[in-house]
């Protein structure tokens, strides 16, 4: 029997990003399961109510992993992680 589910299609730019979303799902960091189905390596179908939170989490993740030159003391070697501001 065919089933139809309303939700949101997440198109990820790469497989790694999709794996991060699956990680969020497994970790349960959003409190509830939100992935309906994994469609292929870069597409997921998820609960629309969680889209904003997923996007915020991904933003936070890439903020955590970005490194910038510390311009304050003018030494080019001292790179420090840019702490997430949120």
């Amino acid at each position, binding site marked *: *029997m*065919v*089933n*139809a*589910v*309303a*939700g*949101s*299609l*997440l*198109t*990820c*730019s*790469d497989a790694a*990003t999709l794996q991060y*979303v699956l990680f969020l799902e497994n970790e349960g960091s959003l409190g509830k399961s939100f992935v*309906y*189905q994994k*469609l*292929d390596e870069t*597409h997921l*179908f998820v609960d*629309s109510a969680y*889209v*904003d939170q*997923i*996007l*915020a989490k*991904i*933003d936070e993740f*890439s903020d955590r992993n*970005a490194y*910038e030159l510390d*311009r304050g003391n003018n030494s080019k070697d001292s790179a420090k992680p*840019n702490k997430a501001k*949120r």
Partner: protein
Amino acid sequence: MATVISAGGGANSSEDEGAGDLFDYIGTLDEARVGDLFACRWSCLGVLRHLSPLAKQLVLRLTCVRKGVPLEWLSKSVVAGAQAKGALREALTQLRTLKVLVDVIGEPGRVQLHKAFASQLRASIAAPQISALPWQDGLDGSRGNDKTSGSALMNLEDAALRKWTAILHFIVGSNEYGNPGKRVVKLLVSMGLMGHGGASDRSGTAHNNGVAVLGSSLPQITRQGYEFMLKDIHEQVWIFMKHYTRKVGSPESVLQMLFRMSYCKPGTECSSGTLDETQRSLLGDFDLFGLVQIDESRRDRFFPTSLGVNVVFGQSREERMAAAARAVDLPAQSAQTGASDAAKRVKGEPGMVPMNRRATASSNVFIICETNFKVYAYTESSLHVEMLRLFVNIECILPNLIVAVITRSSIRSAFKLGITGSQIIHFLSENAHPLCKKRHRLVPDNITDQIILWEGERNRVRAQRGVLYKDFQPEEEAVHSAAVAHALENKWLLFQSGPPNMAFVILESKHDEMRAFVKRTRERLRNNVH
């Protein structure tokens, strides 16, 4: 990585609707409106002036022909040869788009000039002395109030320019000129050049929006606003005018007003006695922008400024380049000048008024971008400081130089306002220092790549609302493929996955239609089997 870059590129290719100049706009008007527009002599002359040399010649040949002429007759008027044929085709397309040349109804293959257009032209040729300048009726004849000379003109131009600059400053969020007034702010917001809390549709920035709105009630620049700032002054004015033509009931009266204004001399006294209702309300707004100045002592008198005079025929950046290119191969063009000379004789060409020199001098900014993300901008205008501040961290501001650095967070704060990576790169390369231009190293590759990557990072995930159809049984494959084909045909399909798990996603709004289609198809197939 390739996917990231293409995602960034895809976002950049979205064009705004601000494209196209005034004449493109006339091309989109319907028959009746064009008729109304051509009822005004200045509009006809303005359109004539815009035409290509060959098109001008054709028009002037047809001016006194009151009946339709066969199309072949026109093709006989150019010399044989492929090049001339191409030019003729182009000229005819231009004439038809502007509805200057129309088909004769009931006589296929015959064309004639637009009736109103032709009669206005004939009137101009027969009696060129009737009011050499527009809007002179009702003036007492004495020309003592003109501000066409010396310091009066300078004052007028300065005041106009100040009004316009104040608006630009306000858009980029500089306080130097203060608030341009409620009416202008409302207009900017309604045009989408500014918005409350950025134009970003990314929900990831939703938290910031709340803060921005609480922090200040002033609107901020949007993506369209930034695009607007990158344009030249004439294009900017035209974007405003285009907004008016959409807003008011009779776009042709806005156009008529602009055409008339383009035949004025900056600083000549004009009377607003003959303006209609729409135009009179426009005049007040033009005063706010600095296109005209309303006389304070007599409200029915106004003075056009060079900003206003140049709206229609102000050269755009491309035209200036084309003009420079033309100057090189002048002899090739000399054959066509006959027609434009004739056009000049019909009516003295409105003088192209040079913009105030100070405006052009301060509008230059020379940017040097280094591979270590440092940016040096030579400029004296605080407008540029504010424009740069949107996407760089400014380290110091010297009297003629800004030293700044591009960082991930500075670029990201620009993205949050909706400014795109390509706009930033465009701004940096367009305003590159002449020395950089000479060496063809406008912006270092690592900078442009990094900006695009940062943009891609923001677009790692795209979310679209939809309905997922899944769990098709193996025997229902025909239903599945029919449904996918149907969705594809109607452009509802967002995604489809391969055979092992037959599933597809369509637009949320089309769910009911799709459900009905699946049901129908299934029944049809079942009936076929039995």
